[in-house]
Each structure stands twice: as structure tokens, then as C-alpha cells.
């Protein structure tokens, strides 16, 4: 145990000493400065360790002057204080190191004194047990902050310092007045003493007002809305190091003392006060950051918002009606939030110090500038935005779960704020990753790196805390695999090695997860994931491609998080992996051409995921098991996230560009397997939630319509798409729409259709996307009008694509038909005839784009610039062949998949097995009809070969002519361009249906975003930048607090 007074005394002494040294040997000041900070840090850490290990049992009470508490001042250092002290000095050390490397402003001894005393003041604020002493430390912190904020001597910094000074003076006046009044009322200044008196029944009619006066003063320092304009100005204007220290450390001390004060003064209305101001600040700030173009101010809004969340959590803690288990959860959440915010924000602000400009556009290209920068930035942004596995995620999870016991509206508020946060952080991320050129970035990156490593290092701790409180278990094998996946990043010097390692890892994963490959729903999807990933990974053979070094790690993370997802036994676990999968896929998509698409994807994913989390928070048990009498809202909330991944209308707007512009090597996985995770999730929702819904049939019918409309509209859009990958994207989404329709039927046959299609869609769409990747790699474009005639250059790919397209169109002899047949049979059996009509029509429309794929790429005239194009690379060709086989085999023997599905459905007792019989002549027999796959295949192949032989034998000499040799109205065409019909192929049809393809959803979503953005823009005007106004806000809000909560 280290006496906390040593920390304060020695720091003060050092500060005075620095003052002397500065006068004689300014250079030597650092020899006092750094060791002092190190000592402070170590001393706090020792105490914290003491508390955590249990060697220090009760809080350390330091009686200054030897007087017992009410008489003398005392310091009271418990677990929280020790932790906060450690945090403060850790952040201070980072900041000091960073500043020192950059060079302190001269005279440096003075700035060191300010820096040291700011950290000391913050520590003192948290240590002290006396209200007036609190005021003194508040003033120390404030004055040091004024000086430090102004220290860069830039105009903005001075302006910010002045505003802070004005507002801070008012706030400390409130605190001072409150403290003195408190003394008058209770006769004491000691926190414990007063707390004891109040708990012991002491009351006074003005006690409420007095407490509120103090709390209002503290709330100003806690930057609650709308009295936080000054704070935002500081974040924007001050030196980033100072900001890191303020946001990372000093504010947290105010937070702690706010909580302590509120709990000592214990007025019943405090928790409402905190909830309202915390929640309001949180939501409003996250929202206001949307259109912020200044990076530092954006981070400022984020900080303020995080602080709001903390205050909200504090409100929960103060609430008398919070059950004990939830209290533990909130406490853990608060710890994690503080940890998360301190380090991520320090990291981000110190990174900002390395970037030349302040505007978001000045940040363009910084990610490619240095791997350290990229790592720190990504880690910090992900953590602060609350993505797993970083501490911020667990904090949010815990908080949401605790808030759910309190009020669903609180959950909604937290999640709405979290979503808004994701919106602008990912916007930030995508803007930063824009641009090809590298930005010039400073090399002062060690401190941010260390801060972000702290975040990474805190992951196990955070996980453990959350797991304890939520009785959460994640499949251990998957965690190991995820960890190993990240290690692949270290092989970043060679893509080939990464590729090999990835293949090995997938193989290892398959070996590790082999016991889970059972005939149930999880096993079914697990098999798909592992087999599919292995095959598709093969096709990503790096060759001479320009792959990012994080491609393979992210790819593997997606794969293994999917594995974890399907193996989840609790909703939490499912959500965790869902989120991991989402961000990893975001990263992958962001590596492609469509950065903005990646952003939209991330935003919608997050919206869906948070809706899901909201739903989970309403569940009585975290285990994935039958939910008794759920409401329709619950079902909707739970399925929303899955619907987003399936890009169901109207949540489809991300799909086209995200698929179309993601890296070509990732798209097969995205379409073939990842979109199926939505299917898996929806299946769970249907099985465990929807099944007990009183309005089940209408809910299902609604989802059925959603599915079929997705199929219809996406097919229609695919018809008019001029980009190969985007066309396939639409097609993919449409097919998943069929799958959703099958699930929504909720009959054994419908599910059979859905599951069959799930697998089969992987085969043909995986094949098509792999082929597309090969084509794009060779041709250099995905734009259909620039292709054509490639059959001559890539016959194998053409053949593979041909079969895949036939399967896609669902034309009989190949595997695609089975899904269609099952689906229509199921639809008509169920009596959803209107949906059946639309589904039929949609699949008719699919023929249109099927032809387009084949024609525009492979047929017609070969363009001159493509004359030298070679067949796709060998790995791609191999994968094409591998994926071809099931298309044909399943076409003849659908039972190869139907039987396992039947077994899987046998496990799903709620559903039963499909009513299908298998006879030799009629093939598969349903109640409605029959279909003999083998016969059709044999018949078709036989007839075809017979006709071919006959033709070959009987026909005259066949002469192969050149591609330009056509009967073209007697003219001799000059170039292939004249003859190729590859653009606007369905313009005539478009004229008929243009009213159907109006981009309504995109317009609506964009409209909503723009409208919200405009509101945010308007709302931000509340921060006029005017000092008088800010002061008026402070007075006004304080009065409001006094008026409303005095009771």
C-alpha cells in the first residue's frame, strides 16, 4: 500500500522543484517531471493491485494533520479511486511522453508544472473526502486546464480557454456556494460525515437545492448538453495532447466525484436528473456529430456523448429500484466505459496530433500512411464505437442488459445513441480511407499505439467481466481460431504466406470444429461455412493481386465468427459474433472500391444489430430456446438484424454497391455464405420466437411478402444493371429473398426449400462470383459493355458460368430447379397464392438477366482490347470446377441434400419433416405433384447427345467463320464495337417498368439521413460560439435543474 498523500505531496514538491530548476537549468526539468509521473502511476497501480488482489481490504483513509474526519480533511481512497488514479496517471504518462517527443512549448518547465498539477488535481478530486477540499482541487484542475488549453497560444486555443474560464468560474462558484451552504446546513464539510448524517435521517428543507447547486456545478464540468459548448471548443481548439489528458483523465475524476456527491447527498430525484441529462447528452451529441467536418470537434462530440452515457449509467446506479445484479452489471459497464473511453480517446487525439489538418478531408489517406497509424486508429475507433471484442462493446452490452430491467425506453435510447455513433465513426473511417495517395503523417505514434494496445490488452478483462455478469460463454475453439486469424496479420510481408496460412487455419478450424458437425441446424450451417470457406479461400490465391495485408486476417475473422455464430447457444454469443462478423466484413468491403457502400453497409448492419440487441434485452432468458408468449415487436426487433444481412426490401440499399465494389475475392464469401447467416438467424427467430407468437400467421405472411418482394424487385433491378458484379449482387439478394420466403412459410416443405436453396445458392452464386473475380482480374473491369465475346478466351469459365446460370435460373436438369419446385409446391400447399404469383414472375424475370450475364460477358463480339485476355488463373479455374460438380450431381440426385435436410428438420421438433415421398418413376412426390430429377437429367443429356450425334452424322460440312463475318445489311462492319449489343439490353423493357424501378427505398433512406443530418446541423447551431450565450446556458440549465428536481 502506498499512502495516497505521498502521491499528492511528492507531486506538489516536484512541481515546486521544477519551478526552481526551470530558472537555472530549463533542460533538466524533464528529469523531475517524468519520474514523478512514473512514481504517481506506479504508486496508484500498486494500490489498485492491492485492492484487486484483496490485500487491501477496506478503503484507505488518510487523516491529514491527524484529525479524525469531521474535524480535519481526509483522503478516502477506495478501489474506484485507486483505479481512477492509475488511469489518470497512465493517460498523463502517455500524454507527457507524446508531448515530450514532439517538444514542449517553451518555457517547458512551466508547462510541465501545469501538466503535472492538472493530473494531480484530477487525482485529488477523486481522492478527497472533503467538500471544500474538492473545491480546491477543482480549482487546481481548472486553472491548470486554462493554462494548458491556452498553451498552444493559437487564436482558437485562447478562445476556447477563455470560454472555459468563464464557464468554469461560474461552475466553481456554484460548487463553492453549495459547499458553504452545505456546511451551514449540516455543520460539516466531510463527505462521509454528511453522507452519514443524511443517511441517518438528517433533513433540511433547502438541502435539495444545495445539493443540486453542487451537482449543477459538477454537471457543467461533466459537459452535459447543452452546457458543453465550451468543452467542444476545447476539443477543437486546444492542443490534442491537452485534450487527451482532459478527456481521458480529468473529466473522469469529475465523474467519480459527481457520483460520490450524488450518492452521499442521496436525494431521490438525483437518479432522474442523471438519467435525463446523461441520456439527453448522449443522444444529442452522438447525433450532432453526424455532419461534423472537423475531425477534432467530431471526436469532441463523441467524448461528450460517451460522458453522457457514463452519467446515464451513474443515474442507473443512483436509482433505488435497480436490482443488485443489475447494479453489478452497471458498475462493470462504468469501469469498462471509462477504460474504453480514456484510452481510445487518448489514442485518437494523439493520432490527431500527427495529422496536419483538422478537417476530415485532411485525414484522407492517413490509413495507408503507416501500419501503426492504421492499427491504432482502427482499434480505437472500433472500441469507442462499441464493437466487439473491445471493452466499449462489453460495456454497452452490460449497460443495455442492466437498463432493460429498468425500462425498455432506456435501452432504446442507449441503442439509438450507439447507432448514431456508428454512423459518424464509420463515416469518419470511410472518409479517412478514401483517396489513393498517402497522407503525410507525423511519426509520433508510440503513445497512441500504447493506448490502443491497452485497449487490446483490456479485451480479456472486459470479456471476463461481462461474461461473469451475463453468464455468457463463447465457444472456446472459435475464440482460439479468431485469435490465430489476427495473427495472420503478422505475416503481412508476404501475401502468399498469408494465403497458405489461411488455408491451413481453415483446415485446422474444420478439424477443431468437427465434433459440432452434427445433423442439426448449427451443424448444417457450420458445414456450409467450413466447406464453403475452404473452397472460396482457394480461389483468392494472391498471385500478383494488390491485396491489403489485412485482407486475409479479416477474411478469416469473418469465417470463424460465422462459425461461432452458428455454434452459439446464447443470444449474447450470437450477437457478439454477429458484430464481429459485421465489422470484419465492413473492413473487407472497405478495402474495395466502394468505401461509401461499406459505410452504408456498416450503418445498416449496426441498426439491425442494435435492434437485435434491443430484442435480446427484452428476452427473459439469454439462452436460445423457446420464448413464451413473445410480442410481435420482439420478433421484429430480433429479426431486423438478420433481415439487414439478407438485404430484404426495404433494407437492401447497401447490397448493390457493397457486393459490387467489395474486393473481388471477398464477394463470393459475402454472397455465398455470409448472407446465409441472416438466414440462420431468421431461422432461429422463427423457431424460438415467432412460433409462439399469437399473431404468428400474419407475421409470417408479412415476412413472406418481404421475401418475395425482395426477390421481385432485386431481380428487376438486376435486369437493368450494367455492372457484372452489381448484377450478381442484385441476383444474390433476390435469391436470398426466396430463401426468406421459404422460411416465412414455416412449413416443413418451405424450410426444406429454404435450406436447399441456401446450399445450392452457395454453389452457383459462389461459382459466379468466383468466375466474376477471375474475369475482373483478367479484363480489368466489371462493366458489362466493355466485355463480350470472352467465350473464345475463357471457355472453361464460360462453361462453368453457363451451368451456374442455368442453375440460377432454375431450369430443370441442373440443381437450381429443386429449390424452385419445392418452394412453389410449398407456397401452393400453404395457399399463399398471391405470393406464389409474384415469386413465379420474379423467377421469370431472372431469365432476363441470366441471358444478360452470359451474353454480355461471353457472347457477342469480342472487343479488341480483350483479344489478349487469358483464361482465369488456375486456382480460380480449380474452384470453378469444384463448384460445378454439385450443380450437375445435385441436378440428378437432389436427395443428396434433401435427405440431410430432412434429418436436420427432424431435429427441429417444432416443424416436423416434409411430406415428401420418393418413388422410382415419379421421383420426388409431394402432395401436389412430382418431379423426377434423375429422369430429366438422363432424358435431357441422352436426347441432347442423340441429337448431337445425329446432327454430326447427317449435317453437311460446318465451316467456322470469324466473328465479324455476319450478314449485316450488306455492310462490312469495321470494329466489334459496331456490332456488339451490350449496353442497355433491356431498354425496351425498362420503358415498360420504369415506374417499378424508381429507387424509392434509396431515396427514402437518403431522405431520412439527410433530414436527420439537417436537423443535427440545425441543432448544432445551439452552440453559437458566443461566450455570453454559453454562460447564459449554464445559468439557465442550472436553474432548470433547481426548478425541476428540488423536490
Amino acid at each position: 500500500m502506498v499512502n495516497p498523500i505521498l502521491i499528492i505531496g511528492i507531486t506538489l514538491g516536484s512541481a515546486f522543484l521544477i519551478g526552481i530548476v526551470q530558472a537555472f537549468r530549463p533542460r533538466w526539468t524533464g528529469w523531475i517531471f517524468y519520474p514523478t509521473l512514473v512514481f504517481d502511476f506506479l504508486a496508484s497501480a500498486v494500490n489498485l493491485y492491492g485492492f484487486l488482489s484483496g490485500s487491501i481490504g477496506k478503503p484507505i483513509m488518510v487523516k491529514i494533520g491527524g484529525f479524525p474526519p469531521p474535524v480535519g480533511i481526509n483522503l478516502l481512497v477506495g478501489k474506484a479511486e485507486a483505479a481512477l488514479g492509475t488511469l489518470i496517471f497512465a493517460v498523463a504518462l502517455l500524454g507527457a511522453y507524446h508531448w515530450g517527443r514532439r517538444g514542449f512549448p517553451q518555457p517547458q518547465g512551466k508547462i510541465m508544472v501545469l501538466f503535472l498539477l492538472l493530473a494531480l488535481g484530477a487525482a485529488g478530486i477523486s481522492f478527497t473526502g472533503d467538500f471544500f477540499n474538492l473545491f480546491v482541487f477543482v480549482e487546481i484542475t481548472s486553472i491548470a486546464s486554462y493554462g494548458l488549453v491556452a498553451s498552444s497560444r493559437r487564436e482558437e486555443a485562447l478562445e476556447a480557454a477563455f470560454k472555459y474560464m468563464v464557464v468554469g468560474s461560474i461552475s466553481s462558484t456554484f460548487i463553492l456556494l453549495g459547499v458553504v451552504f452545505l456546511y451551514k446546513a449540516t455543520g460539516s464539510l466531510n463527505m462521509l460525515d454528511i453522507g452519514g448524517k443524511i443517511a441517518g435521517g438528517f433533513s433540511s428543507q433547502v438541502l435539495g437545492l444545495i445539493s443540486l447547486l453542487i451537482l449543477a456545478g459538477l454537471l457543467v464540468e461533466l459537459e452535459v448538453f447543452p452546457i458543453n459548448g465550451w468543452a467542444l471548443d476545447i476539443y477543437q481548439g486546444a492542443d490534442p495532447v491537452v485534450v487527451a489528458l482532459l478527456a481521458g483523465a480529468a473529466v473522469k475524476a469529475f465523474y467519480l466525484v459527481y457520483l460520490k456527491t450524488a450518492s452521499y447527498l442521496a436525494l431521490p430525484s438525483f437518479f432522474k436528473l442523471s438519467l435525463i441529462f446523461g441520456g439527453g447528452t448522449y443522444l444529442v451529441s452522438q447525433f450532432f456529430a453526424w455532419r461534423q467536418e472537423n475531425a477534432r470537434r467530431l471526436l469532441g462530440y463523441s467524448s461528450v456523448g460517451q460522458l453522457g452515457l457514463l452519467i446515464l449509467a451513474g443515474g442507473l446506479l443512483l436509482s433505488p429500484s435497480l436490482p443488485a445484479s443489475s447494479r453489478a452489471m452497471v458498475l462493470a459497464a462504468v469501469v469498462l466505459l471509462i477504460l474504453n473511453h480514456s484510452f481510445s480517446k487518448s489514442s485518437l487525439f494523439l493520432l490527431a496530433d500527427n495529422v496536419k489538418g483538422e478537417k476530415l478531408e485532411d485525414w484522407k489517406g492517413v490509413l495507408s500512411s503507416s501500419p501503426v497509424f492504421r492499427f491504432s486508429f482502427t482499434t480505437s475507433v472500433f472500441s469507442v464505437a462499441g464493437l466487439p471484442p473491445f471493452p466499449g462493446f462489453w460495456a454497452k452490452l452490460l449497460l443495455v442488459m442492466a437498463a432493460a430491467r429498468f425500462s425498455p425506453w432506456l435501452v432504446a435510447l442507449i441503442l439509438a445513441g450507439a447507432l448514431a455513433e456508428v454512423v459518424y465513426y464509420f463515416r469518419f473511417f470511410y472518409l479517412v480511407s478514401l483517396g489513393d495517395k498517402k497522407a503525410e503523417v507525423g511519426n509520433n505514434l508510440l503513445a497512441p499505439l500504447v493506448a490502443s494496445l491497452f485497449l487490446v490488452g483490456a479485451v480479456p478483462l472486459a470479456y471476463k467481466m461481462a461474461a461473469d455478469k451475463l453468464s455468457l460463454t463463447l465457444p472456446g475453439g472459435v475464440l482460439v481460431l479468431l485469435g490465430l486469424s489476427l495473427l495472420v496479420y503478422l505475416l503481412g510481408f508476404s501475401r502468399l504466406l498469408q494465403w497458405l496460412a489461411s488455408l491451413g487455419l481453415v483446415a485446422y478450424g474444420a478439424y477443431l470444429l468437427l465434433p459440432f458437425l452434427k445433423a442439426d441446424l448449427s451443424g448444417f450451417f457450420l458445414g456450409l461455412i467450413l466447406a464453403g470457406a475452404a473452397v472460396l479461400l482457394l480461389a483468392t490465391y494472391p498471385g500478383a493481386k494488390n491485396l491489403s495485408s489485412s485482407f486475409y486476417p479479416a477474411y478469416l475473422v469473418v469465417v470463424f465468427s460465422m462459425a461461432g455464430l452458428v455454434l452459439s447457444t446464447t443470444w449474447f454469443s450470437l450477437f457478439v459474433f454477429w458484430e464481429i462478423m459485421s465489422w470484419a466484413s465492413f473492413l473487407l468491403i472497405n478495402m474495395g472500391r466502394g468505401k461509401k457502400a461499406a459505410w452504408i453497409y456498416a450503418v445498416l448492419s449496426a441498426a439491425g444489430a442494435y435492434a437485435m440487441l434491443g430484442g435480446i434485452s427484452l428476452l427473459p432468458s439469454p439462452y436460445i430456446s423457446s420464448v413464451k408468449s413473445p410480442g410481435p415487436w420482439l420478433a421484429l426487433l430480433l429479426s431486423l438484424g438478420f433481415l439487414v444481412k439478407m438485404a430484404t426490401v426495404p433494407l437492401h440499399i447497401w447490397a448493390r454497391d457493397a457486393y459490387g465494389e467489395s474486393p473481388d475475392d471477398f464477394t463470393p464469401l459475402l454472397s455465398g455464405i455470409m448472407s446465409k447467416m441472416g438466414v440462420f438467424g431468421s431461422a432461429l427467430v422463427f423457431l424460438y420466437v415467432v412460433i409462439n407468437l399469437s399473431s404468428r400467421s400474419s407475421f409470417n405472411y408479412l415476412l413472406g411478402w418481404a421475401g418475395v418482394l425482395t426477390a421481385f424487385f432485386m431481380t428487376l433491378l438486376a435486369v437493368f444493371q450494367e455492372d457484372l458484379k452489381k448484377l450478381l449482387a442484385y441476383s444474390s439478394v433476390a435469391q436470398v429473398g426466396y430463401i426468406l420466403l421459404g422460411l416465412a412459410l414455416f412449413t416443413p416443405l418451405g424450410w426444406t426449400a429454404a435450406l436447399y436453396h441456401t446450399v445450392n445458392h452457395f454453389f452457383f452464386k459462389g461459382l459466379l462470383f468466383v468466375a466474376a473475380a477471375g474475369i475482373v482480374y483478367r479484363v480489368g473491369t466489371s462493366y458489362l459493355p466493355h466485355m463480350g465475346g470472352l467465350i473464345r478466351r475463357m471457355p472453361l469459365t464460360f462453361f462453368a458460368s453457363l451451368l451456374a446460370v442455368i442453375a440460377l435460373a432454375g431450369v430443370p436438369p441442373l440443381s437450381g430447379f429443386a429449390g424452385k419446385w419445392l418452394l412453389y409446391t410449398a407456397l401452393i400447399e400453404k395457399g399463399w397464392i398471391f405470393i406464389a404469383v409474384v415469386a413465379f414472375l420474379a423467377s421469370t424475370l431472372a431469365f432476363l438477366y441470366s441471358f444478360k450475364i452470359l451474353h454480355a460477358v461471353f457472347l457477342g463480339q469480342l472487343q479488341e482490347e480483350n483479344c489478349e485476355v487469358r483464361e482465369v488463373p488456375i486456382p480460380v479455374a480449380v474452384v470453378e470446377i469444384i463448384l460445378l460438380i454439385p450443380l450437375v450431381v445435385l441436378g440428378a440426385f437432389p436427395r443428396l441434400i434433401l435427405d440431410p435436410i430432412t434429418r436436420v428438420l427432424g431435429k427441429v421438433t417444432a416443424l416436423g419433416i416434409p411430406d415428401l415421398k420418393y418413388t422410382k418413376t415419379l421421383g420426388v412426390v409431394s402432395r401436389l405433384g412430382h418431379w423426377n430429377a434423375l429422369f430429366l437429367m438422363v432424358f435431357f443429356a441422352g436426347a441432347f447427345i442423340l441429337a448431337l450425334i445425329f446432327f454430326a452424322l447427317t449435317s453437311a460440312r460446318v465451316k467456322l467463320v470469324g466473328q465479324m463475318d455476319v450478314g449485316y445489311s450488306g455492310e462490312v462492319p469495321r470494329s466489334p464495337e459496331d456490332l456488339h449489343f451490350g449496353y442497355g439490353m433491356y431498354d425496351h423493357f425498362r420503358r415498360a417498368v420504369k415506374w417499378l424501378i424508381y429507387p424509392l427505398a434509396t431515396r427514402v433512406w437518403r431522405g431520412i439521413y439527410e433530414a436527420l443530418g439537417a436537423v443535427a446541423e440545425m441543432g448544432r447551431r445551439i452552440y453559437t460560439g458566443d461566450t455570453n450565450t454559453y454562460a447564459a446556458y449554464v445559468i439557465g440549465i442550472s436553474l432548470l435543474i433547481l426548478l425541476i428536481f428540488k423536490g
Partner: protein
Amino acid sequence: MWAKILYAFLTLIGGIAYGLLLGGISRKITARMQNRRGPTVWQNFIDLWKLFRKKTAISHGVMFYLAPMFRLVGGAGTFLLVPVVVGSPYLSNFSFGGDLIVLMYFMVLGCLGMALGAAESGHPHAPIGVTRGLSQMAGYELPFILSVIVLMVADKTATLEGIVRAQQGGILHWHLFTHPFAAAAAFISLLGMMTSYPFQVVLAPQEIAVGPPTEYSSTFLSYMFSGRSVFAVAKYLLFMNLFLGGASNLLWAFVKTFAIFLWPLFITNVFPRLRLEQSVLFFWTWPTFLGLVDLLRIYLVR
């Protein structure tokens, strides 16, 4: 089994011949209505023979080469999946191979193959024709599907045999009369299927020189030609089975299919041609509406 194949093969030959004959008749009737003498009704046979005997055939590539086979097999396959006389061991073809859903998808195969071959020819008119054809398909499929679903739901079966059996017991049990709106919708979409006027823009003989098969000649064309003929007969048979109660013997089959054949023929000679978007929109309005009427009825009655 082998006997079955033999019977089917014979029926197929008959079907092709019948199809060619109907084509000739149609040309004759059209000519007469336009006050021409027109070719003889056997003209199609002559054409076919002539094409088949041509010495040299020009090919543009593999798909171009294979497409006629696709076309023929597709047409023949469709034909063979439709029973000529339900219940007859000789004339029910391979209808065990699949139900109506199978049939409807199988119908596409030949068209798709032909389209691919045509597209490989490198002649711009070919894909233009194909896209028009496919778009038109999107048009007429909607009313057709509507009426088919009406029948499937009404009869609770998806097999043609089942549908035919449901129509036994007198002319008034024909679906033509029990589901008149659906039948009307289907018959209107038949016009589109047969690419007859006013929905003939797919082939557009004047402007784009018979559309998809524009580059085909000689033996290739003869295959296409046969495929097309048998495909048409398959459609007539399908309609017969769906709406006219099927056929109890071969004679009835001839009579009923001939009647169905006459329907587009007359329309063809009366109406002008529609542009493609006009035809699509036409199909998506009136016939769809008719189909919906019956579907709604079924839905509500059920």
C-alpha cells in the same frame, strides 16, 4: 420402359409433323385472308427438307453449334412432358418426369439454348431479338402463371393428369368454363407465347430479320425449325390439357389443338403490332386482371 421410349419417339415425330403442318396451314390461311394464294400447306416440310440438305453450314462457335440441339431437345422435351391423351399408355409421353412446375421451367430451356447460340453469332439483331423475346415472356408469364395457379389451387394438384381428371364429366367441367377468367388470361398470354401479332415484335421479320435465329441457316436452321414446330404443338397440347379437358383419344387431341391453334391465327391477322413495352404493359393489365379475378375467387372460396 423401352416401349415407352419408342412410343414417345413416335409421338414426337408425329408432333413435329403436326407442327409443321399447322405452320403451313397458318401461312395458307393468312395468305387467303390477305387475298393471296399463299404457299401450299406442305411448304414447311419442303423448307425443312431443303434446309436439311444444304451442303455447307456456317458456325460462329461452340454455342452457336450447340444451340439448335438445345432448341430441338428443349422443344421435344416440353412436348414429351405433356401427355397427348391422359391415361393412355401410348400417348401419355413422359409425363411422369414432372408436374406442371417442371414443365413450365423446362419450356425455357430450349429458348435459352437458342438464345445463347444466337447471341454467339455476333450479330446484333440476335440479342436484340432475344432480349425482346425474354421481355415479352416477362409480360405474358404473369397472366399465364395466374391462371395456372388458379387451376393448381382449384384442383389441388400440380400434375397435368390431375388437372385433366378434374375436368372430366362433360364439357361444362372444362376449366375453360369453370374458370373463364383464368382461361381468358391464359389464352391471351398464348398470343404472346406464339409471338403472333400483335405481339410479334420479338421476331420483327421486317426490321431485324427474324430476330434471334437471324444468323442461322441450313442444317442448323432445320433443327431450329423442327424444335419450334414441336414446341408450338407442345403448347397447344398443354393448353388443351389445362383448359379443354384434355383428350380422351388422338382424334380429340387433333380437334382441340387445332381449335387452340386457330385462336392466335385469327388474332394475328386482325391486329397491328405493338411495341415491346406496350405489349408487356398490356399483359400486365387486362389479362392479369382477368387472372386475378379468378385467383381472388379461388382464394376467397377456398
